[in-house]
Every structure is written in structure tokens, then in C-alpha cells.
């Protein structure tokens, strides 16, 4: 981790606290002693069909109640079809998993947004959209991308199924305190460069294990300038740097997003909440355990070339040569990645031809993402032979996009306009790549086989996804502008 600079942290002597430490302190039920973890209270527990059935079973076997159904909410997202959602799910094991969630939620009194419900969608899109995700709260879900909710200044942790059961039974989790890392993004993004490019650049810089043991706090001018959607994109991928969580201190952008949402506080409660939220920002002079500094002015659209999210490069760059990598393990990982990706060192990234473009996932499926992509492709023709799949993050995003006519733009372009869910991000449902198929994807993971056995994934922003769909090769919107000049 050469790019992570350890700092000498002395907060305990000064009493100054970072955002993450403030949220932690506020939720301390018991302070651990003699090496035992702290017990942390959980304000919001999100469930979905894949990581909850075994936890419900555990409760049932131990004859334990679900402690707080009123702090728990479930949606169907990972394993749901994005076509023909009014028909029974064809795959029987998938159907059983969905039906099991429905039975469990009915039995334990959990609010569930099922396929077809207006609030159904990817759990990390639904929570913020309903106003349930709020600054300063603790959020958990049996899904690593729970880090998304940190965009509101919440402490949001992805957990395993045993921990899901633990939260169901106790509304708490035993946790060891994390270290803190400031990711300071100075300057301003250039046109065509987005939140996705910031986080891909951060991961390439610190590596897939660089954030291990840390809660990352994104700060600096470039972060302040982002919308909530952009901040969610960044926090979402904190896990890809190995971090337990990512956070952004709440500000007016946060309050404006939340005000008036279904579950946001109202009236006097709103004022009390905002007054509290305003105390959450990291104290001036508080120190972090480590810091990383990024200059937004220097960032370009970023894409991955390999099989982990840290294997990325600027779109204007080339496929790296493993021989140039000094670390032996990283070098062999790069060699293996190039073989899997069927790429040759030195190939310009922009020469790489893709078969499929996937616009969706908890990273980039909000209406702002769809709008940005639609703007690029509007009035243009899709590259010949290329398939583009657009999967809104939630049923409400889909409706909102349709009200703006975005569906029509995508359909006219030749893209598929699907129903909400995780879809091709993880390929649990039928939305999968064929072996050898190459995809420019706005999702979060380019692992081997992630989007389908033998599939090859390049992680990109919605703007790059859209431009790529027009040109057929990895492209930025600027390439379209240049094409237009010719």
C-alpha cells in the first residue's frame, strides 16, 4: 500500500473526532473490554432474498423473535427476473428463494417490497429513495454494497448471514473499532469525468486490500460538488478497496435530497434531525489513521482492464504490460487477468471492442445515471451487433425515467429497457454474459465469471457506457464529439 500515508493519530488526547468515530460513539451499547468487541446498535436492517433465508431459519431453530420489525425492511432484487415480472419465475430454485423470503417476511412481520410493487428494487436504491437512509444512523445488510448508504453520513456495513441473524435477534452487532482513512479529492472534475471515475481511480491507487480495516471518509471540494447519486456511487465501491465502509459528511445537498421523502423526519422532528446532522462532520483538526489525496483536475474517464476492480487505467491509456509490475504476486495476477480477459499488453483501451453494454446495478442505476447516458445516445444509432441492456435500480426509478421519456430514448437507440433488479451485475438471474462475451458495465465488479461464466467485464461510468454503445469500442463522450467534427 505505498499510496496510503499513515498519519500519527492522537484524537483521544485532543477529543476531536472524525465523522465515523462520532457515529460509532453514538451507537455504543457496551464498550468492549479485554479484547472483546464493542456492541453497536443498528438503526436500520435491510434484507433481500439471497442472504436472509438461513438467518430466518436460525431464528426459528433457536425460537428467537425478530427484535425490531419496525427497523427492518426487505426487497426482492438479486435473483429476480427483469422481463415478464408478472409471470411465475421460470427457474424453480430462484422461485423458491423468492417465495421463502415472502413467507419469512409474513411470518416475522417484516415489510417487504415484492416484484411488481412500486418500491421494489435494488435494496441500496430503495433505502435512500424512501428516506430511510439518514445521516448519522447505522445501516446493515447482508450485502457488501451496503457501503452505498454511507453517502448520507451513515455508518453502513455489509455483513454475512450469521450477522444478519444476529441483528434480527438483538438489533446489535459486536464489532471491533475500525481505523479511519481520509480520501481527499481536491479540485474539480472535468466535463465527462464522473464520480465513478473518482472511485475507480481511488481503487487503482490503493488496491483491493488498501482499505482493509478502515472506514473511508471521502472529502474535499470534488466530493462536495457531487450530487447524492454521485456520492452513493463512490461510497458503493468502498468495499472494492477492501474497506468496511465509506462515508461522506452530510451537508445541504444531503438535506435537500432527504427533505420531503416518505420516511424523512417532518416539522419539528426535521429541525431536530438537521441540528443533529450538522454536528456530524469531522472536527477541524481531528486526525485520521491514514490519508490518500487525489487531484480531481487530473482525472480522466477510468476503465478496468483486469479481473479485479483495482486493475484499472485511464481510458486514454493502454493495457499494461505485466512485465513492468515489480511485485511478483501482482505480476502473476496481471498475467492471469490478461489471459482471462483475452487482452494483449500495449493495446490502447479505446481499441477494445465490446459485445454488450450493461447500464445498471447499485453503483449506477439511479435516474441521474440513466439521464446522463440517455443524453449521450439521444438521436444516435447503436453500434452494429452490440447489445445494450438498461436496468433501472428500482421500480420507482423506472417510472420516473419513463415520465421523462428516457425509456423511449433507450428503445429508439436499440437498447433493452428492463424491470428493476441487480440483473447482470452478478448474473444470478438469466441476465448473464455468454462465455467469451465482452461487456462494458456500469456495475462494481469485474471478477472472473461475475457477469456469467467466461464473461469479460470492463467497469465504466454511465457516460463511457453510453459512448461505447454508440461506437462499439470503449469510448468517452469526447470521442463522440470528435466523430461529429469529422
Amino acid at each position: 500500500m505505498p499510496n496510503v500515508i499513515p498519519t500519527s493519530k492522537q484524537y483521544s488526547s485532543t477529543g476531536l473526532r472524525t465523522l465515523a468515530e462520532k457515529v460509532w460513539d453514538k451507537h455504543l451499547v457496551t464498550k468492549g473490554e479485554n479484547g472483546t468487541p464493542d456492541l453497536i446498535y443498528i438503526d436500520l436492517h435491510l434484507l433481500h432474498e439471497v442472504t436472509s433465508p438461513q438467518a430466518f431459519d436460525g431464528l426459528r431453530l433457536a425460537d428467537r423473535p425478530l427484535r425490531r420489525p419496525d427497523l427492518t425492511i426487505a426487497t426482492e432484487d438479486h435473483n429476480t427476473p427483469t422481463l415478464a415480472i408478472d409471470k411465475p419465475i421460470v427457474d424453480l430454485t430462484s422461485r423458491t428463494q423468492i417465495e421463502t423470503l415472502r413467507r419469512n417476511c409474513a411470518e416475522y412481520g417484516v415489510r417487504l417490497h415484492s416484484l411488481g410493487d412500486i418500491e421494489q428494487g435494488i435494496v441500496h436504491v430503495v433505502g435512500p429513495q424512501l428516506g430511510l437512509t439518514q445521516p448519522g444512523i447505522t445501516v446493515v445488510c447482508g450485502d457488501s454494497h451496503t457501503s452505498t448508504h454511507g453517502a448520507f453520513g451513515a455508518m453502513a456495513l455489509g455483513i454475512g448471514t450469521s450477522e444478519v441473524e444476529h441483528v434480527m435477534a438483538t438489533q446489535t452487532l459486536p464489532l471491533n473499532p475500525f481505523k479511519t482513512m481520509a480520501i481527499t479529492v481536491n479540485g474539480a472534475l472535468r466535463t465527462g469525468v464522473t464520480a465513478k471515475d473518482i472511485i475507480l481511480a481511488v481503487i487503482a491507487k490503493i488496491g483491493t486490500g488498501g482499505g482493509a480495516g478502515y472506514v473511508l471518509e471521502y472529502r474535499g471540494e470534488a466530493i462536495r460538488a457531487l450530487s447524492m447519486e454521485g456520492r452513493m456511487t463512490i461510497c458503493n465501491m468502498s468495499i472494492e478497496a477492501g474497506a468496511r465502509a465509506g462515508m461522506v459528511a452530510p451537508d445541504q445537498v444531503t438535506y435537500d435530497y432527504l427533505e420531503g421523502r416518505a420516511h424523512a423526519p417532518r416539522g419539528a422532528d426535521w429541525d431536530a434531525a438537521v441540528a443533529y446532522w450538522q454536528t456530524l462532520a469531522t472536527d477541524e483538526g481531528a486526525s485520521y489513521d491514514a490519508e490518500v489525496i487525489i487531484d480531481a483536475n487530473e482525472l480522466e474517464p477510468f476503465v478496468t482492464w483486469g479481473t479485479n476492480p483495482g486493475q484499472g487505467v485511464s481510458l486514454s491509456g493502454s493495457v499494461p504490460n505485466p512485465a513492468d509490475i515489480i511485485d511478483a504476486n501482482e505480476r502473476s495476477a496481471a498475467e492471469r487477468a490478461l489471459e482471462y480477459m483475452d487482452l494483449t499488453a500495449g493495446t490502447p483501451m479505446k481499441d477494445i471492442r465490446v459485445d454488450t453494454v450493461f447500464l445498471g446495478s447499485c453503483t449506477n442505476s439511479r435516474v441521474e445515471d440513466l439521464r446522463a447516458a440517455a443524453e449521450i445516445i439521444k438521436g444516435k444509432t447503436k453500434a452494429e451487433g452490440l447489445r445494450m441492456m438498461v436496468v433501472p435500480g428500482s421500480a420507482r426509478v423506472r417510472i420516473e425515467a419513463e415520465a421523462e421519456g428516457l425509456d423511449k430514448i433507450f428503445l429508439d437507440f436499440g437498447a433493452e429497457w428492463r424491470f428493476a433488479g441487480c440483473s447482470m451485475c452478478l448474473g444470478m438471474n438469466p441476465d448473464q454474459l455468454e462465455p467469451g462475451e465482452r461487456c462494458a458495465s456500469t456495475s462494481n465488479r469485474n471478477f472472473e465469471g461475475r457477469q456469467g461464466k467466461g464473461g469479460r467485464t470492463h467497469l465504466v461510468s454511465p457516460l463511457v457506457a453510453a459512448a461505447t454503445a454508440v461506437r462499439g469500442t470503449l469510448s468517452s463522450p469526447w470521442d463522440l464529439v470528435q466523430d461529429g467534427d469529422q
Partner: protein
Amino acid sequence: MQKFTTVTGVAVPLRRSNVDTDQIIPAVHLKRVTRTGFEDALFAAWRLDPDFVINKKEYQGGRVLVAGADFGIGSSREHAVWALRDYGFDVVLSPRFGDIFRGNSGKQGLLAGQISEADAETLWNLLECDPGVELTVDLVSKTVRVGDLTVNFEIDDYTRWRLLEGLDDIGLTLRDEARINEFEATREPWLPRTLPALSPESISK
């Protein structure tokens, strides 16, 4: 959970770093609603290759996996731990683990021991030169022994204690239930609640 003290068994050298949980168990195998029966899903894509280390007959019945750095990164799926357990692994040794994976391991009696990069290399060489050799992993002394070689591993004290005692986390927490009740009584009234369900349509009226 069963008490864990020592394990002696065949060790498998997995000379790869960044083994993410999608490789340990691909998503298509996550559709089941039980905690068991995932042994065939372990490394499902890699096992299609007959030369993949786990397929070699010398390493059959492996109980200790020695992997490269950043093992278990990615998705939080506890199915990764269940698949390793169902296959028969009791121990994974790696220079660094994904945080969520390491936490999940401790809940399911899978020992995730952290070794140095140099020791990983030493163990790989040894296991490749003498395939099928058995290691002894001793949680009491936090050591791995094979022949004359002894390698230390790290694990946090709390997880080690729970594994040694075979303790159930939820039971431990519920001893503090009175404290949870006290804490709940102090929570601000405006904190979000999922019930009753509200929607933009219901609140605008």
C-alpha cells in the same frame, strides 16, 4: 459451534492472490435456502480445469487451504464460508483476508489465520514439493507445524477465544439484553422506522 483446538490434515496450496468470493462460490450457486450442500459449488468455475490444484488426487480430502493475499474479498456471501466448510476445509491461511469473509469465517468455525507473505511462499513450496503432506494447525499456540517447520499465524483474540470455546455469538450478546433495552430507550424519536410503511403518495395527502 464445535470447539476448535487443533486440526491435522492435508493442506492445499492455492497460489493465487485476490481470490474473491465470486470465485469461491459463483452467484448462480447462491439460490439455495439452506446452509449446507454447497461442497460442489466451491471454486465451481476453476474446478472445471482438471489441472486446478483441488482436482489433483494428492490434495484430496484437504482440510487446510493456503492461499495468497486478499483471500475472500468482494461479496459478503457467507455461502463462501459454507462451501469451504462443506468441502471439508477447517482452516484457511492467507497473508490478508477480506474483512467480511474473515468475520463470517469466525461465525462458522472456519479458522482464518493470517500468515506472512514469506511464510505463505514457504508453505506453498513445501506443499508443492511434497504434495499431500499433512499440516497441524494449533489454535492454542497459533502455530502451523509440518515436520521441523513451525510457522506462526495471527487471529484476533476474541475470535480465537470464541473458536476455542465454541461459543454462539447471539447467546453472548443476549447476556447484555438489559443494556440493549436501556440504549433503545434513549434513541431519538425522529429516527427512521420502516413501519408503518409510508410512500410519497401517502404523505403528500
